[in-house]
C-alpha cells in the first residue's frame, strides 16, 4: 500500500472506533448484548428501550438518557413467564453515592423508597407490551426498579438499573470526533481524485458520458406474470387440489377453499384434520387472517374458511394433514 494512504486510514479507523465505542456500556440489570438492550428481571428477560420522542425522535437508549423531559420506557417480554406476572415500574433518585455501580443491595438499604420516588407505575398484567412515560423535570442520577410478581406463588423478581437523565457530555465529544473523521476522510478523498484527474484528464468526461448514457438506456424490469388459478400441493403421501370460492383469486377478499385430499394412488383421504398456516417467504410475514378447516364436506373434501391475501406476489400456504396421529405438511405456492 502506498505510504500516503496509511496515515489517514489509520486515523480514520481508530477515530471511528472511538466514536462507536462510546455507545457500548452496561451496568445494573440492563445489558447491551449485540446491539440489543436487555433487562433481566430475575431469570426472565425482556427487551428494554427508552425513547425521548419529542427531542430525539426514533433514537433508542439503553439506559442513560441525553435529555430531560418526556421519556418512554418500553419492555417487550422475551419470556412467556413475564406475560402472566404483575409488573410494576418505579424510578427513584439515586442518592446512594454509587452512581452507575448502584446495585440491588444498595436499593434494599434505602429506608423510605416512597420519599425519593419520582415515578411509580402500579403493577400491570400486560401480555403485549409494557410501556411507561415519565416526564423528567430535572437532570440527575436515577435508579429504575422493576418488580415482577408471580400471580400464584407470590414470588417476586426484581431488576435494578441506575441511569442518568439529561447528560450532555457524550454528545459534544461524539460530534467533535465525527467532524475530525469526516474532514480527514474528505481531504484524503479530494487528494486522490485530484491526483487521478491530473494523470487522466479524460476521466470526468467519460464519467459524464456514462451518466448521460445510463439515463437514456433504462434497464427493463423483469416481468413475472401471476398464475393463481391452480391450487395444488404435494407431500410424501398426499396430493391436494383446491377450489377457491372467488374466481379469479384476488387480493384483499376473504374467502374459502374446498380442497380435495387424495393419496398418490388417487384414493380419497377421509377423516383427516387440516391445520393452515402460511405467509410470504420473500417478505417474511404471515397471513392477515387465521384460516381454519371448518368441515369435511364430503369424503376427502374439506372446507377451509378465512383465507385472505393482502399483498400481491408469491404466497405459500402450508397445510398440515393430521391423519391417524401422523402429521404431514403440504405447501401450496401461489402467485397473486
Amino acid at each position, binding site marked *: 500500500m502506498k505510504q500516503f494512504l496509511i496515515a489517514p486510514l489509520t486515523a480514520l479507523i481508530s477515530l471511528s472506533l472511538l466514536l462507536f465505542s462510546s455507545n457500548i456500556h452496561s451496568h445494573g440489570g440492563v445489558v447491551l448484548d449485540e446491539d440489543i438492550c436487555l433487562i433481566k428481571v430475575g431469570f426472565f428477560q425482556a427487551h428494554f428501550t427508552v425513547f425521548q420522542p419529542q427531542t430525539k425522535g426514533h433514537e433508542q437508549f439503553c439506559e442513560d438518557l441525553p435529555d430531560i423531559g418526556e421519556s418512554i420506557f418500553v419492555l417487550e417480554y422475551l419470556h412467556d413467564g413475564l406475560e402472566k406476572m404483575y409488573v410494576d415500574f418505579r424510578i427513584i433518585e439515586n442518592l446512594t453515592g454509587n452512581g452507575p455501580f448502584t446495585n440491588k443491595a444498595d436499593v434494599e438499604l434505602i429506608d423510605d423508597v416512597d420519599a425519593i420516588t419520582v415515578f411509580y407505575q402500579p403493577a400491570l398484567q400486560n401480555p403485549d407490551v409494557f410501556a411507561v412515560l415519565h416526564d423528567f423535570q430535572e437532570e440527575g442520577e436515577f435508579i429504575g426498579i422493576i418488580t415482577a410478581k408471580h400471580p400464584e406463588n407470590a414470588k417476586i423478581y426484581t431488576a435494578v438499573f441506575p441511569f442518568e437523565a439529561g447528560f450532555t457530555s457524550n454528545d459534544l465529544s461524539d460530534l467533535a470526533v465525527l467532524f475530525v473523521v469526516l474532514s480527514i476522510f474528505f481531504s484524503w478523498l479530494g487528494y486522490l481524485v485530484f491526483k487521478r484527474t491530473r494523470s487522466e484528464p479524460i476521466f470526468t468526461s467519460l464519467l459524464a458520458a456514462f451518466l448521460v448514457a445510463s*439515463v*437514456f438506456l433504462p434497464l427493463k*424490469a423483469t416481468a413475472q406474470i401471476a398464475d393463481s388459478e391452480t391450487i395444488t400441493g404435494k407431500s410424501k403421501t398426499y396430493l391436494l387440489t383446491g377450489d377457491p370460492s372467488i374466481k379469479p383469486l384476488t387480493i384483499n377478499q*376473504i374467502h374459502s377453499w374446498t380442497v380435495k385430499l387424495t393419496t398418490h394412488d388417487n384414493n380419497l383421504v377421509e377423516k383427516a384434520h387440516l391445520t393452515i398456516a402460511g405467509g410470504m417467504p420473500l417478505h417474511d410475514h404471515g397471513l392477515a387472517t387465521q384460516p*381454519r378447516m371448518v368441515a369435511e364436506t364430503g369424503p376427502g373434501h374439506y372446507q377451509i374458511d378465512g383465507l385472505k391475501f*393482502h*399483498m400481491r406476489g408469491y404466497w405459500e400456504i402450508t397445510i398440515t394433514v393430521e391423519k391417524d396421529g401422523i402429521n404431514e405438511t403440504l405447501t401450496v405456492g401461489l402467485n397473486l
Partner: protein
Amino acid sequence: MLINYLVAAALLVVGSFILWFKFIPVNDWSADEIDQIDSLWIERLSLSPPPDRTNLFADNHEAQLLGLQLFFDKRLSANGLISCSSCHQPNLDFTDGQKTSIAIGTSSRNAPSLIGASYSPWFYWDGRKDSQWSQALSPLEDQAEHGGNRVFFANLIASNFDYRKQYEDVFGALPDLGNKNRFPNMIGPFNTPENKKLWANMLASDQEVINTIFANIGKALAAYQRLLTPGPSRFDHFVSLRNSGTGETADPSLTAEESRGLRLFIGKAGCTNCHNGPLFSNNSFHNTGLLSSPGKLPDLGRVAAVNKAKKDPFNCLGAFSNNNNYCMELLFTKSGKELVGAFRTPSLRNLKRSAPYGHAGQQQTLTEVINHYDKAPDAMIGHNEAKPLELWPWERWQLEAFLESLDSPPNIDSRWLAPLPKNKDE
C-alpha cells in the same frame, strides 16, 4: 483547459438530469408493471361498496336521506354543538385537518376520510368495529366526541316529528318511549357510573328496544356514508388512456416526474405491498413505526382491538346484525404480537385535503411521510414492517409527485355534501 472540460461535463450532467427529470416520462413499462398499474385503476373498484348483509337498509334510499340528516345534525350531541360533520367535513374529504380530532374533548386518533371507507371490512384505525353501522354508534357515546347516550338518541328520534316519520318509513313503527320509569332520561356519555346504573336497572326487553333504535341510527348513518365514493384521479385518466390504446405515444395525464414516481411506487419503493388495489389500501393492519404523540404512550393499535371487536354487542354476530352468516372477517381475524402497534392501511386517494397523516396525525406533509418510509426507523413498540428504502432525493420528489396525482375528488352528487333544508323543530 481542465476547468473547461469540468464545467462542460458538469453542465451536460445537470442538463441531462433536468431533461430526464422533467420531460422524459417512463415509456417502457414492462408487462408486470402494466398489470400492477391496472390493478390500481379506479375502474377495478365496484361502483358501489360491497354489500353489507348485516345492514338490511345499507342501500335503502330513505335510509340514506335519514342518514344524511343525522350526519349533519348537531342535536346528536350532549352539548348541541357536535355533529358527525364536525370532524368529517365534506370540504376536507370528510376529515378535519387536525392531528387528533377535537369535539367535546380531544380524541386520541386522527379523523380518517370517509370517502371509500365502506369498502373496508374493518373500521377505525385499529379495526375495533366490523361494520360501518356499528362504527357510527361509538362516537355518539364517546365522552370526547358526541358525549351522548343511546336512550337520549332514541328519544331525539321519537320526539321529533320529521325524524319519527323518516325513521318509521324505513325501520317500522317506533315503540312508545314515554314511560320514564322504563326509559329513564340519561344525561351525558353512556358509560358514566350514573348512566350505567340507570341502564342496569332497565328491563332486558326495554334495553333491547333502545339498542334496536340505536343500531338503526347507525344503519341510517352507514347507508348515507356508503354514498361517499371516490371519483377518478389524473392517475386513473392515465390508465384509461393507456388501456384504450390512445395513451401509447403521449401520456398527458401524468408528468414525467409523476410517471417515474409511479414506477417507484409499484416497484423499488414497495408501496403496493400495503397500498394496493384501486383504493390504494389492503385494509389490513401494519406497524410502520410512527412515533407516539406528545404526552402519550405508544398506541397499541390492532392488538388491543381484536378482542373489542369480538366482544362488541353490535358486531356481525350480534343480536342487532341483520345476518349472522357472513362473518368470516370477524371469525378468522388474526391476533397476537405481530399486531402490536399495527394500524389499518389508509387509502391514498384523499391526500390533498386530508393532512395531517398517520393514526395520530404525526406527519404534517407527504414529504415527512416519504422520508419516514425512506428511513424506516425501529418502532417504539412491536416491529416496523417497513424496510429502509434508501431512495435518492429526486426519487422521493418523484414519489411525492405521483401521490399528488392520486387526488380523487369524491364521486358524489353535491346534494349529499350538505344538510337538507332544516327540520322545522330545529
